[in-house]
């Protein structure tokens, strides 16, 4: 295990722990308006380590609870998109011919539209965004790249000798795919999933910042940044709290993804 992988694992592990135990770790209720008279936009202090926002909510508590929201959304969205991408990539790579051509042209079309615009368009049409809708939309727009990756990997694996050997031994087609082809494509899928989580967190933060993501008052890092936007000069700590969390998390997943890549496949690192 490389240092990078250890660092990535530790950081992501810490984030997961924070997300799970957020209610216990947070000093205040993340949506409680503590003191609307004198407690608004307070700078970091002993009582509020990250300060408070416009509604006198404790930012540390909001960031901790935001980890829950952001990580959950990102994880479910990535599981959805990786599953879709794997199924499509596997189908395209194994069948070939016109099925492959049709699927890959559809993927090209999907990739040609910048994801953030695609998301904005879909979410704008969707009245009263729920978190579930957000997860679905993030998941359904994130599988194009994965499907290409899986297809390429499947094509290289299926030409390898052990596939022919297993086939010659009478191993059935379904088992051939699930036991022989798929596990040999697992490494890039895992790496892509890890990097995907970081990316989806970034996208979700962007959407929430634009007011099209997680609906307030539920805390997400994106809408914390948004809350701080009018006060960037007077109370920069508000946006910094959300932004810092995003930066740290995306970095953690990137480091983990790179570390996993090295570990799973030393040749390609």
């Amino acid at each position, binding site marked *: 295990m490389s240092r990078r992988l250890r660092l990535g694992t530790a950081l992501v592990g810490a984030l997961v722990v924070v997300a799970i135990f957020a209610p216990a770790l947070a000093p205040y209720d993340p949506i409680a308006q503590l003191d609307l008279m004198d407690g608004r936009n307070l700078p970091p202090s002993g009582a509020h380590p990250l300060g408070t926002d416009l509604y006198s909510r404790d930012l540390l508590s909001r960031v901790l609870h935001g980890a829950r929201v952001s990580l959950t959304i990102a994880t479910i969205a990535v599981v959805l998109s990786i599953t879709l991408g794997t199924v499509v990539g596997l189908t395209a790579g194994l069948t070939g011919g016109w099925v492959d051509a049709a699927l890959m042209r559809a993927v090209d079309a999907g990739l040609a539209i910048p994801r953030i615009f695609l998301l904005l368009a879909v979410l704008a049409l969707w009245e009263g965004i729920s978190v579930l809708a957000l997860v679905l939309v993030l998941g359904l727009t994130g599988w194009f790249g994965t499907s290409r990756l899986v297809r390429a990997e499947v094509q290289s694996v299926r*030409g*390898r*000798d*052990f596939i*022919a*050997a*297993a*086939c*010659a*031994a*009478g*191993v*059935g087609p379904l*088992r051939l795919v699930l*036991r*022989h082809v798929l*596990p*040999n494509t*697992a490494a890039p899928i895992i790496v892509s999933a890890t990097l995907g989580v970081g990316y989806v967190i970034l996208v979700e933060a962007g959407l929430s910042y634009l007011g099209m993501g997680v609906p307030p008052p539920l805390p997400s890092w994106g809408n914390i940044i948004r809350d701080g936007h009018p006060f960037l000069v007077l109370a920069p700590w508000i946006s910094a709290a959300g932004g810092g969390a995003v930066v740290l998390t995306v970095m953690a997943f990137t480091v983990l993804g790179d570390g996993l890549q090295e570990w799973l496949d030393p040749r390609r690192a």
Partner: protein
Amino acid sequence: MSALLQVRHLTTTFDTAAGVARAVDDVSFDLHERETLALVGESGCGKSVTALSLLRLVEPPGQIVHGSSIRFGGRELLTLPPEDLRQVRGAGIAIVFQEPGTSLNPVLTVGLQITETIHAHERVPKREARERAVELLRLVGIADAPQRMRSYPHELSGGMRQRVMIAIALSCRPKVLIADEPTTALDVTVQAQILELLAELRDRFAMAMLLITHNLGIAAGIADRIAVMYAGRIVETAPTGALFREPLHPYTAGLLRAAPRLDGPARPVAASPGSVPPATAWPPACRFHPRCPYAWDRCRTDEPSLLDGGPAREARCWLVAEPLRRKA
């Protein structure tokens, strides 16, 4: 007595950018029960494609041409439905490939790859399949068989991997074992052990064997009968002893001269001039005539069929019809 495996007019072509390659062209042979037939020839003459064709393992753009026939135990394999074909693969006819390094799945344990084959053909409890796999590993000469079940392919040496491949091939007691250059990728010392093992297991399991090799020495040690292939065709078949005593086809004679011998007086090793032509452009008439020292007009205009050359012998050469020219 009808043969266990009857191959008739087998033709396998590949559509390539350079044209249609007739990699295997009208090949016919019989394999009888408990018989070992060696298919011998240079690289590119169609031996391996023949082996793959027998189990319909040729991948597109390769295809077996209509009119070919492969009968195994009375059943036509070329029209067999997929599920029946799957049952023949492994349980009727098993194959050991050339590269033990790449023929095992790197992410699955050895034990799983053996039991998987057993489960693919028989409904047996997991425990029983496991016991059979351990027994097979012992049989192919792997020490610490129960521990080795948990090994991954990269933890084994080349020779060990080939032993595992043989164990997989034998796991469902096939009637025919195809060994496609089974020792080419191995060290010389290991080669001899693997060949010995194959011969021993062939007798023990009463299997017929189709041995594919470019090495006449290997064929001599293990085969009852040898079929020599050149340019997609069988050019000579003969019982092993007869073939070595008196090769009928000049190509066979060339192969024999090219093999160094340990017995008899020392002599220079001679190779036939030139090399196998590309499969998209086999020479017209007799395909060997551009490299043949005896070639005359007839060889350039007419292709001989397999001519009767004595007891159980055939050769695709006009010299069989006009033996006097051999002296000239």
